[in-house]
């Protein structure tokens, strides 16, 4: 899309065959990704898919076992001040020191970040009605999340990584938090990478989608483009996957018909139109859920493997 790669600029984030092993188990493996500058990217995956592992390697908190992270073209080195300063991080549980006041937290932020913007930090909490002298432990969940976001924004880092930022918030606090994220995305042309469980809400927030499953990238790219190359087919039940136009991702069999999520060239779909077949556009949620429910061990680059290599989708028989 034009707004992403105007001028062929350096991506905000690039990971190259990134992996992290915990003992004998790989938490994440062979993760090659790009997030263009100026996008709001969503990172989706079930628990244990490797989301937090990936995010911590991107922020420079965790050393990769193999592979490389680059932020705006510069290789990251875990634990170094420059690498940490280039990425703003809002961790899952908003880990702020309980006995610190908001002002103390900002003091800490200033000490740790060369580009700390005290004016921005103070103006933001003022606008939110959070007193600087209030202790962290007496803040509401929504306020803690907002202080965490404020600290990430005040670092003036070009890439912001948010790990499940709203999972602990009530619906109103959630909306207010995301409103501020969307406004800052518009304001300063920041790039956001946001992990989330709440698939239904993501469509309106993100324009780039990354689906992780089983420690591997299952799907990645511009959300609109991904939607355009997937269809929900309704076909007679006996139709084998090999006869479908494209790669079958998810299949649900009923008595007489099957519903199959396929990745296909839309032109190919139009040409291969069959009587008795129906091809419908797929919704954002159907697309994400289709991949989440059928993690492919072959998918590594975000482009699903060709049909021959990709194992058949987990077939769910509604009735037998």
């Amino acid at each position, binding site marked *: 899309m034009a707004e992403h790669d105007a001028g062929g600029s350096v991506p905000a984030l690039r990971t190259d065959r990134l992996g992290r092993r915990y003992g004998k188990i790989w938490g994440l493996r062979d993760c090659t990704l790009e997030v263009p500058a100026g996008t709001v990217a969503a990172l989706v995956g079930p628990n244990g898919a490797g989301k937090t592992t990936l995010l911590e390697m991107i922020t420079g908190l965790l050393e990769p076992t193999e592979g490389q992270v680059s932020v705006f073209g510069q290789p990251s080195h875990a634990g170094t001040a420059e690498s940490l300063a280039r990425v703003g991080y809002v961790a899952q549980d908003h880990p702020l020191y309980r006995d610190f006041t908001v002002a103390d937290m900002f003091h800490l932020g200033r000490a740790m970040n060369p580009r700390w913007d005290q004016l921005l930090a103070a103006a933001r909490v003022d606008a939110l009605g959070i007193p600087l002298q209030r202790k962290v432990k007496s803040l509401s969940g929504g306020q803690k999340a907002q202080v965490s976001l404020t600290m990430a924004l005040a670092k003036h880092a070009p890439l912001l990584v948010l790990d499940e930022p709203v999972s602990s918030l009530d619906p109103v606090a959630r909306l207010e938090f995301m409103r501020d994220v*969307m406004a800052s995305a*518009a304001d300063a042309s920041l790039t956001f990478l946001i992990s989330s469980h709440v698939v239904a809400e993501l469509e*309106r927030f993100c324009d780039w989608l990354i689906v992780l499953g089983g420690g591997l990238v299952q799907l990645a790219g511009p959300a609109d483009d991904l939607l355009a190359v997937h269809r929900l087919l309704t076909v007679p039940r006996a139709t084998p996957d090999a006869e479908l136009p494209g790669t079958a991702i998810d299949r649900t069999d009923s008595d007489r018909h099957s519903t199959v999520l396929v990745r296909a060239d839309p032109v190919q779909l139009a040409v291969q139109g069959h009587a008795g077949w129906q091809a419908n556009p797929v919704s954002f949620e159907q697309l994400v859920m289709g991949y989440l429910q059928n993690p492919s061990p072959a998918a590594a680059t975000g482009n699903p493997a060709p049909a021959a290599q990709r194992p058949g989708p987990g077939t769910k028989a509604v009735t037998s």
Partner: protein
Amino acid sequence: MFRFRLDSSSGVPPYLQLVHQVRQALLLGYLQEGDRLPTVKDVAASLVINPNTVVKAYRQLEHERLAGGRPGQGTFITATSAPVPSQTQEDLRASLEAWLRTAEQAGMSDEAVTALIAMARHDMRKERV
């Protein structure tokens, strides 16, 4: 200032919803040439949506020559719409309501009515080509 809304259950991509709303407001005369559309940031914050979605919608409107960006000032409506006069719209609505009542009495479901309208429109377009 024009205000957008978003229906997350409609299945229509968010950027297209914004485009449709401007087109519709032009047809109905709620938006006129020279009107300024809200800034990308305002729309992103008020609807809580990705600003790139708003940018995409505004680009589409520019592409359709319905709106144009003025550097540093924002996006403005450039189309001279000739809205259908309100009396004509009311008359059309009245005859449509009468037709819908007839369809309902004949046992047509909402879905069947929508399908029938889509089919009729499709056939009319084909005749014009």
